[in-house]
């Protein structure tokens, strides 16, 4: 029996570690799923903001500014670290109710309309959600239809009504936001697919970092902000940047990865499942190499898998640099950006959450 004791001990310890890892994955899974399945097209972020607020630890003192950004500030010290993720997602907004009962729309954010063609959608009215579909392009049966361009001006939403008045009676008004039905769908292993991992994943990573943080150990001034209207021009972040007096800003947002078969791997080739990514160069800025190395050093100290890379796109942190802050974008590698089928690996998100927590304490 005595000989068995070390084996039993190892078994118990490994079981405990496995259980802890499982519990962490469950945390990510359940929070991310909840945030994903809540709509928040740019300009209509309130439902997501309230979800995020509800997950905040009791010790935080959240505030919402006039723009709608959610802000948590804590700790004190000579340096101010600012972590920023965005609440909003790309989508459509109603611009007109047509005589035939269909809706015309405008885009919020950048994406290919053809990946939204012939899909179910939900229109969020004051009276509640109304289901509809984005119709196939006109005369889609024609041979030449395949060669047509398809743009937002071609997008029509059909709700089952054939008259303007019937559509109005459903409670629909111009300005109502529209998304595809939001659903978090697990894939094999630790991967999942959904619309709006960008940037509900960033929001989740920041939440988890806060939930696992001991605020008594913090020796700097720290701000966590969940912003509005990133996808339509970094508008929420712009307002915060002006007043923040931050020394370092960590934009927590997607690294659009070329890790899929239809991408050119010339750049942005950060594989899924290999850790969080320091987005050292993107369309909106460059991060100084010594600072990149400092983050890598902290990650390695804690065995957090880390990658560095360059990709396209901007981020909220870039609005802070004109006020003297250094922007260090932190990401998870994501496939199929701004489409209804974005894909991520939850282990990368776990790594992202952990590096945020350690940066708060050690950067």
């Amino acid at each position: 029996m005595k000989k068995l004791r070390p084996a039993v001990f190892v078994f118990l310890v490994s079981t405990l570690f496995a259980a802890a890892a499982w519990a962490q994955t469950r945390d990510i899974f359940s929070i991310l799923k909840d945030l994903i399945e809540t709509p928040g097209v740019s300009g209509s972020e309130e439902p997501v903001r309230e979800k995020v607020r509800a997950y905040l630890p009791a010790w935080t003192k959240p505030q919402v500014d006039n723009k709608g950004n959610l802000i948590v500030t804590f700790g004190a010290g000579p340096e101010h670290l600012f972590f920023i993720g965005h609440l909003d997602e790309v989508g459509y907004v109603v611009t007109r109710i047509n005589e035939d009962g269909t809706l015309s729309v405008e885009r919020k954010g950048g994406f290919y309309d053809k990946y939204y063609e012939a899909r179910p959608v939900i229109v969020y009215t004051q009276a509640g959600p109304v289901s509809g579909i984005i119709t196939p392009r006109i005369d889609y049966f024609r041979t030449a239809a395949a060669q047509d361009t398809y743009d937002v001006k071609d997008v029509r939403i059909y709700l089952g009504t054939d008259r303007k008045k019937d559509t109005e009676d459903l409670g629909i008004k111009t300005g109502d936001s529209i998304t595809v039905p939001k659903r978090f769908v697990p894939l094999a292993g630790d991967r999942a697919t959904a619309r709006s991992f960008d940037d509900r994943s960033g929001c989740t990573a920041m939440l988890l970092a806060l939930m696992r943080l001991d605020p008594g150990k913090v020796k700097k001034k720290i701000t966590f902000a969940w912003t509005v209207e990133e996808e339509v021009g970094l508008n929420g972040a712009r307002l915060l940047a002006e007043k923040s007096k931050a020394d370092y800003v960590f934009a927590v947002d997607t690294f659009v990865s070329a890790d899929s078969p239809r991408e050119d791997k010339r750049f942005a080739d950060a594989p899924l499942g290999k850790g969080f990514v320091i987005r050292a160069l993107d369309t909106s800025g460059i991060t100084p190499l010594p600072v990149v190395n400092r983050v890598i050093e902290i990650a390695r100290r804690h065995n957090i898998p880390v990658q560095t890379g360059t990709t396209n796109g901007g981020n909220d942190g870039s609005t802070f640099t004109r006020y003297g802050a250094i922007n260090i974008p932190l990401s998870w590698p994501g496939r199929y950006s701004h489409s209804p089928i974005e894909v991520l690996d939850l282990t990368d998100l776990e790594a992202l959450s952990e590096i945020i927590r350690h940066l708060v304490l050690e950067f």
Partner: protein
Amino acid sequence: MKPFMRATFLAILLLPGVAAAQSLDEVRDHLSMLAKVPAVTGHEQSLSSLIADQLKKSGLNPQIDFMSNVTVTLGSGTPHRMLVASLDEPGFIVSGITEEGYLRMQRIGTAKAFPYFDQYFEGRRLTIRTSNGKTLSGVLSIPSTHLTRGANRVEKPFDLVDGYIDIGVKSLAEASELGVKILDPISIEKGVTTLAQDHISGPFLSDRVGAAVLMSILMTTAKSQIKGTVTFAFTTQEHFGRKGLDRMTVAFEPDQVYVLEALNPSAPEDSVVSVDVQAAPAVRKMIEKFAGMREASLRAVPQSPQWKDGTEVVRLGIPIRFYATPVEVLDLKSVQSTIRFLRTIVLSGVS
């Protein structure tokens, strides 16, 4: 039956509340249940089993053949009518697995409904049914918006050459461990959206609406009242040369075949249930008694050389907007009209 007696019988049947009727909600639930089950051509087994189970619960004795066609025969004597609805939808099979674990795909059959058809699969969630009976979710890969924007790429429609299905695995070995094999069927993710004014939408409702009609009639019609013999046939492989229909007509040798099909409306007047002008005069005359129906010249159904000589084919077209897309739209009132019309045919013995 003398003309007077037949007219009286029909009049009684058509009185509101006399014939068993299903509410629109019941029709929607019925259709939704069928529409949510993947059944690509040649892989209809799950849907066939579901239909058979439902019919058994109603005290019926459905038969399933080796092609997964489901049949129920009621009544006796002549005429022998067969009501036909197909079950299968267009889809793909796994044709290969890359070293990175992406699934390649090949169309079942050769014909596309229209040139742009495959585009509506790109960037979608798909369902793969593995050989060990598991259902896996995957997505059909696309280029990212951020990485292609401004890259001066030529915009071209999706082609199967670019078909890579991402199921979340990292290697061929992981895909194999999940049970994925060559020939596993791939369907578009199924679901039904309820729209306003009794409309519903979903992928390939046109390949389920006929089955929903037949099931409704079977579940709400008293067997003892059926005149002649009626075979209800839920057929497979419609999208591969109508092989199921051929087999059923050869197996049962009906005098008359009612084929339920989707009608792709090209004009507002096409938005009602249509009965082919080739139908027998007595059948066409019944149309007048039903709201939301009309007589129209529909595309002829080609008969198999093996069919019995003189087999009469009556085609019923149920209007489906956005036909053959993932957002087909159906007016439930059309389904209700079709159910009432066909039930009357079954009960009256009209031929």
